[in-house]
């Protein structure tokens, strides 16, 4: 049906080809990292793109024990998980109040939170380090978690305010007329409807915290507190003394990568939607 000139048809065919090439490259890169993590170090240096002849999990045992990745993974999971829950619990009522109340104060506060989106972490890193060392919370996952909760506020409030604005107020009206107080209305009427948005906010915050590197490097340094990005970077740094052990390094990369792959294949559309539609509003 569509009339097309041949040049445009060719251009779109080249474009489609290029897109598939990039898609294939992305997939192959991940696949290569996964396969390489199952091969021994010398083997990798010999043939960069070989299949694991006899898949071995030695790299993972080394990474988890000697590299300290086991403890780091646990620290990452706890810090990212708990701080994201705390961030959503704090931000949800605030975002709800901001979305429902139309006053000058409300829009001023919304603006204040939104302005935080533009502040790069490098501005906060020195003050937060100094402040936390005053209360002996450096080199502690509690301190790091607190920092993540603070850093999460602008985006989580921003995201959830947009989300709550999209929920019609009819239900609340009915609840209030029935005599429910504000807390009960929020917890029993609004939150169940908003569950999707809260899950998205949690997921996005978890992903951010899981990958966060600058504050983790500064605020954690002993074996018991470091998170995965710190473990990975100190493993890479240690290689100048121990010699290059690519197998273990790629096993470490896989440990940091695997939960993201799992989350993305499980709830990919929700993640993409949260990170794109929420932004455009």
């Amino acid at each position, binding site marked *: 049906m569509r009339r097309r000139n041949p040049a445009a048809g060719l251009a779109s065919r080249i*474009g489609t080809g290029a897109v598939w090439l990039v898609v294939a490259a992305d997939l192959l890169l991940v696949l290569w990292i996964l396969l390489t993590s199952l091969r021994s170090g010398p083997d990798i240096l010999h043939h960069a793109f070989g299949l694991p002849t006899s898949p071995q999990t030695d790299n993972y045992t080394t990474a988890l024990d000697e590299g300290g990745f086991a403890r780091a993974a646990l620290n990452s999971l706890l810090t990212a998980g708990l701080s994201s829950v705390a961030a959503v619990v704090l931000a949800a009522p605030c975002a709800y109040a901001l979305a429902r109340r139309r006053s000058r104060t409300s829009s001023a506060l919304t603006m204040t939170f939104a302005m935080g989106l*533009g502040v790069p972490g490098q501005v906060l890193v020195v003050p937060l380090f100094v402040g936390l060392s005053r209360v002996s919370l450096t080199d502690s996952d509690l301190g790091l978690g607190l920092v993540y909760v603070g850093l999460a506020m602008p985006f989580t409030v921003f995201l959830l305010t947009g989300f709550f604005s999209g929920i019609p107020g009819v239900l609340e009206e009915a609840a209030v007329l029935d005599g429910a107080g504000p807390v009960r209305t929020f917890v029993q009427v609004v939150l169940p409807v908003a569950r999707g948005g809260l899950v998205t906010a949690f997921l996005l915050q978890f992903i951010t915290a899981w990958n966060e590197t600058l504050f983790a490097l500064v605020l954690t340094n002993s074996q018991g507190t470091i998170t995965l990005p710190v473990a990975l970077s100190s493993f890479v740094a240690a290689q100048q003394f121990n010699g290059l052990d690519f197998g273990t390094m790629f096993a470490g990369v896989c440990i940091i990568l695997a939960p993201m792959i799992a989350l993305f294949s499980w709830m990919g559309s929700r993640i993409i939607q949260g990170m*794109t539609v929420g932004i455009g509003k």
Partner: protein
Amino acid sequence: MATTIDDPLRTGAPRGRSAPASRAGVGPLERQRRRMFWPFTAPALTVYAVLFIAPVGYALWTSLYKWDGMGAMDWRGPQNYILLFRDPRFRTSLVNTLELMVIGGTITFVLSFALTLVLREMRARLFARSVLFFPSLVNGMVFGIAAGFLFSPTGPVNQALKLFGVTTPPKWLSTDNLLPMVLGTLVWTATGYYTSIIMAAVDQIPDYLYEAAELDGAGPFQRFRHITLPCAWDVIAVCAVLWTVSSVKIFELILLYGGSTNAYPPVSSWNTAVYVYTEAFPQGTVPRLGTATAAAMASLVMVTLITVVLRRLLRREPVEY
């Protein structure tokens, strides 16, 4: 400020239950929303004030002193900022930050638009989009490490090039080439994300606009120029701001690029975030928290200015459809 606006209404109304509902049209719901406002916002606001706003203020204050983090703070006033701009390492970092922002941004946006155009008419577009999006969920260090292996002198890329007869491949990871490599990786990982945002906006544009344009004989580029671009303009403006802000936050990608085993990457690839990190948390020397926070404040001012200018430049009358 707020209470002065709210109070007359609240105190002016009698305490009784029946009267206030009629005054200024305030129903029970509105009254409840007003009452819940501060209790609901206070916890988040407190955390935000203590862990976010106060540190920004503290950074500004520290940037006026000479301080190693432990001893006494020596007043320096604006001197730190002058020292900063005399420091060639900071100037390099600043130029690199701008380079990543402007050049990286331009390439990413051109590619994202091209991808949006292609993906629009492609089969399995959602699958392709998902794969392209995924790198934005990956820690930047992973790409740095992978690149360090792939592009090493005897690494797979050079071996592959040898098969094509390239015997003197470029020195990918040499000090001079690090920044372009970082830039390339950045574009590679960011394009999928911005494509997804723009695609989400483009999907909202009703089909009849395109059909009408096609009937009028508009080619694909004219359709893009006269329909897609104006309709998605708001989102594009937001994306530009988002890019500006996030390009300044880049840190771990540079820190570990090429799997560098030194404490820090070479200065030629630093951006302001790496500069702040090395000034404030150096290995073996005394921390210079004054210049570190001055550098951080300088980049904050830079982001703010660029954001304000961008918003001005990109402001258009919204298109209704």
